[in-house]
């Protein structure tokens, strides 16, 4: 399937080919390698010296109390923090080995390759369900109706929304329920076929059933995508993620496999936070 535009070359498959009778699973590369990341908003030092790697095709959860720098960290991964006035960053972020902040990198292209889903669903109010899904492709100049139609259906199916909206594709996106709107936004995010999905509390405004549908969707998407999810819901982090990072006061306290972090955290501060002793 075609990709709209690439400035950073697509990563090559990792490792030499294995003998056919004993195929070795390909080693997971790092989608992101973050080193010594510091971010300021004016005088506020929001993120302090974070270093961590995000393996590809895994779900990484970022947890921590309000104001700890979770969303700022997430936004650094697709350069969205640059949209905030007086923001400043030092350190480095490699995206599949390429410097995300190199001078020749176009942030708009980066944001196509690294999609984002926000806390509050935000379908375009004047657009139909179908138009909402394909808006990113059309903004990139794709006009082929058959292609747009196929990609729309594929994206809605991946977002587990197709069966619910296939007869109402012409209705406004905002006519859907909250949970459906959020899945529509996820369909919109994956329609341009990004390599990574960043999710900033994607289910925090949803009811429990819609939350479970979004969590199941995240699980399904993780087969093809690298997902980084910010969540306040620690049970959600525990359920959906492979790795979890705990941030506190802008610093990375602990980054570990999720099952380890929630059963035997290395740091007392992690234990105190996840077990509800402060926050």
């Amino acid at each position, binding site marked *: 399937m075609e990709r709209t535009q690439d400035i950073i070359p697509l990563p090559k498959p990792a490792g030499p080919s294995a003998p056919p009778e004993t195929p070795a699973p390909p080693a997971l590369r790092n989608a992101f390698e973050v080193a010594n990341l510091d971010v300021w908003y004016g005088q506020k030092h929001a993120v302090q010296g974070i270093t961590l790697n995000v393996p590809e095709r895994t779900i990484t959860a970022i947890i921590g109390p309000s104001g700890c720098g979770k969303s700022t960290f997430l936004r650094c991964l697709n350069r969205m923090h640059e949209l905030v006035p007086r923001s400043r960053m030092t350190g480095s972020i490699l995206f599949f080995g390429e410097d995300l902040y190199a001078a020749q990198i176009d942030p708009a292209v980066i944001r196509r390759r690294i999609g984002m889903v926000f806390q509050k669903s935000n379908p375009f109010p004047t657009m139909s369900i179908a138009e909402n899904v394909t808006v990113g492709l059309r903004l990139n100049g794709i006009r082929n109706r058959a292609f747009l139609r196929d990609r729309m259906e594929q994206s809605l199916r991946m977002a587990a929304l197709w069966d619910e909206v296939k007869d109402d594709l012409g209705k406004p996106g905002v006519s859907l329920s909250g949970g459906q709107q959020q899945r529509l936004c996820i369909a919109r995010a994956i329609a341009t076929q990004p390599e990574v999905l960043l999710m900033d509390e994607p289910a925090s405004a949803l009811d429990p059933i819609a939350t479970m549908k979004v969590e199941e969707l995240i699980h399904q998407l993780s087969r093809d995508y690298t997902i980084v999810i910010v969540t306040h819901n*620690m*049970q959600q982090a*525990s359920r959906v993620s492979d790795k979890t990072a705990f941030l*506190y006061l802008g*610093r990375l*306290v*602990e980054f570990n496999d999720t099952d380890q972090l*929630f*059963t*035997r*955290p*290395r*740091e*007392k*501060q*992690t*234990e*105190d936070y*996840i*077990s*509800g*002793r*402060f*926050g």
Partner: protein
Amino acid sequence: MADTSRHILGSYDAALSALQNDLLMMASLCERNLRNSLGCLLQRDEDLCNVTIADDEEIDQLEKQVDKNGIDLLRRFQPVATDLRHVVAAMKLAGNLERIADQAVNIARKARKLNRAPLLPEVHFLDPMYREVTSMLSDVLRAYTENSIDLAISIPARDKTLDAMNHEITENLTVQMTKFPERITEYLDLIFIARHLERAGDHVKNIAEDVVFAIAAEDIRHMGAQRPGSAADLLGEKAGEAEAWKAGDSVAS
């Protein structure tokens, strides 16, 4: 950083305390019943036999209460990390304590039967086993209340000793059977009592393994010769960190 000795939710702390209180009450009754079962035999006290058998009902009810509290806690608070391990351990401990109490009842029933026959001097063969199993139970409960990995980890080796004692007592009583065949039934009852004590020791060992998991998040079951002999063996360099952590230090604070 805020005071982290308590949870933000007071009801969470209250639920954890209630769970632990019921468990400790159950442990205390279980210890008493096991001690009483020895009295049943050595003091030839039929009333004590009946009391020991009747008291098991309270322990059964407490086991159900601990399980109910544990399930309520899991449902209401979704505990994680140390809290989760302690809740799961409490429920498993309750099961093992209930089975130890069942062994005490079995012993009391056998003692009641033996007490109706002339005294067997060989009842004193069981003294060392009784002392060891009651000491093991007392120590494992202390390990639980004091978070002592070393004390808990010492229990499985003592269970091996108990197994050896059982084996020796069984052999000695078998010899006595051949000498005094008219009392073969009573000797068989003593062998069964030794077997009940050995089974109680197995449950104490299970408790010790669960206590180690609750404290150190390490599973020491089914390790055979690889079983660690101390907290340092188990945790290596992390043993010091674990101590510091228990003391409230934090690398990140």
